[in-house]
């Protein structure tokens, strides 16, 4: 099994991101998956993207342009 490397984009672990940790993931080309060195997350690129969407749940005003600051 060859060593892992970075994927085409530098994806972070979505599970760690949700606990305020920025951990770059590495890509296992044999298993076609990203994996986290710190926690137990593994996933395909599609799964990473889906989980990143989930991570945005806390930004309830993500798309709001706010004009009233009082």
């Amino acid at each position, binding site marked *: 099994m060859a060593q892992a490397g970075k994927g085409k984009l530098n*994806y*972070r672990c979505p599970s760690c991101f949700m606990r305020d940790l*920025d951990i770059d993931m590495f890509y296992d080309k044999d298993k076609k998956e990203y994996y986290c060195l710190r926690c137990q997350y593994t996933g395909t690129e599609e799964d990473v993207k889906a989980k990143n969407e989930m991570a945005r749940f806390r*930004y309830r005003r993500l798309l*709001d342009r*706010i004009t009233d600051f009082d």
Partner: protein
Amino acid sequence: MDSFILNIVHRPEMVPEYAEKVTGQGKAEDIGRKALLTESLDIFKLQQAIAHRNGLKTTIQMTYASLFNDEAVAIAKDHRAKYGDEIALTLLGLPCKEFREKYKTKDFCIWMFSMEDKKSIVDDVFGKFRERFGFYPESTGSYYMDAALINYIKAKYPSVKCAVATCWEEGPKAYHTCNNSWYTLMDGGPWNPWIPSKQNTHAPAASEEEDSGIVAIPHLSRDLLACYDGNGSNFGTHPQNVLRGMIYKDGQYPYLYNLIDQYRHLAKFNRGYSYNMMFVGPGWMNKMGRWEAPYELLVKSYEDGMAYYGKLKKEGALRDLTMSEFADYYRANKTYAQPECALWKDILYGSEKQLFWYSDPYMRVGVSMDQGGAVFDLRPYVAKLDWPVGIGTKHVQDASYPFLIQEKYRAGYFTHYAGEGTIRSAKVRYGGEEVDLCLCRTKAKFSEEGNVRILTLDPVEIEFRDLTVKLQTRIIFEEGSSAIKFERRVLGMSDPGAEIEIEEYMVACYGTTEYPEDMTGIKLGIAGPESRELAYEYRCREESVAGATASYAIVPQVGTKVSLVPAQAGAGGDRAAACYVKEGYAFSPMFTLGMTKKLRNKEVFVSWLRLEKAS
């Protein structure tokens, strides 16, 4: 003052932070790689072009590495002549072949070097700058500039009048976010420009004698709510930080504009003045992309951010100044005593929480309206703490200004099972029931009367089994007083003849990180005709005296005396306030100062939280 001022800073960093470590993954380390140097300079050129295209001038902070690059030097000269940019000098971006060969280290944060090395590096970098440009710079900076460093620079290079000197609430939270590998521990400073004291950079100068001689600006303008809890590096006027936080969808990031606009809104609390700083290192716009964001989105976000600033400028709503121009403006328009105020609301999470931040030469204070006006953060700037940092000192990395109250690192109102967390709030009692104002969510309005800033909270209703009380809090800051005045006014009661008890309290300790410190050496006392004092020994002791004039703690570790002082202190009779102190214990390494007072309908209880330097 009636201006929204913008400082844009670019640095030609020949070996961008992150680029070698992140995008160079899989390659043996070589910080002299030609491709790296070329890309770095290209990014700098692109950043400059984007700013100029939007009619904005910049401060070009030359790095040590860039002073060895003829093209970078030529660009800086050309842009000064063409666009009015300022050529300045940063102490970031030290890593390069020349630096490593000379100093035999991979350290790159100027405040972490020994004092001897700081002086040597400063002389080297300033000398090289003069050699290339024929003059010494007027502006400099790093992520943090400790007081000894600033004092040295100002004494030796008096032309310097402005510096990037801290990054707001970049501390343990940033450290954790970077998997405990990013050592920028600098919590506790001001969020907007200030004049640092000679004794401690974070603590603003109270007078000419304390004036370090420079105007400090923060690295970025950061979200005053989001940065206090989450990773600060997601929530600032740094477009790629916003991408880092995944605060975008389909290439849209209204949060960036909301953040800029909320900073503009702060003019309302600062006599018409507001400020923004944007400082994006080139590593954030590299061709490999940055985390999930491709290069195209990184660049687009920078273009969009600058375009928004450019639009505001065209509308006459923004003044772009270089750093040295800003220093002149600031000194012409601000007094030492004038505080920085920010009534800040959540613009991201939809919680509608509202905070108030206050900073002056004596204190930095955070007040949460979501907790009934509780003080959740308190830094005793009055101590002007001598806190040397760098190799050879007690604080090699930790440049944070210590807190007495920090609700995230020391719990706040809610604790698990036992003990107490740091907070300054009040409890109301009636008929054996007790309600803490921390559980009374409300909002506040800001007003100003002469040299007094007033936070008037909307009244809250406190429901007991047999009584409803309508209570209003006002929190008052008087310039130069080194004190916060609290007023609790009973506006009404369902039984107008009832009498309630109010307990003003402050749970505090000291520290800079999440971990407890040794409380030994702290003295707790009650002042007045019947004074008491006890040395902290984790023995859970309590003392209380009716008719006392104050309860206090002397915390020698942070050179501070903090007191809670009731109005009409020492008044006799059974309606006089009683002052108390509570010692903590090992599982709750805190102390509590407080006072209790009986209140009837329409009565008001006034008290002060006072900070003094303890010698």
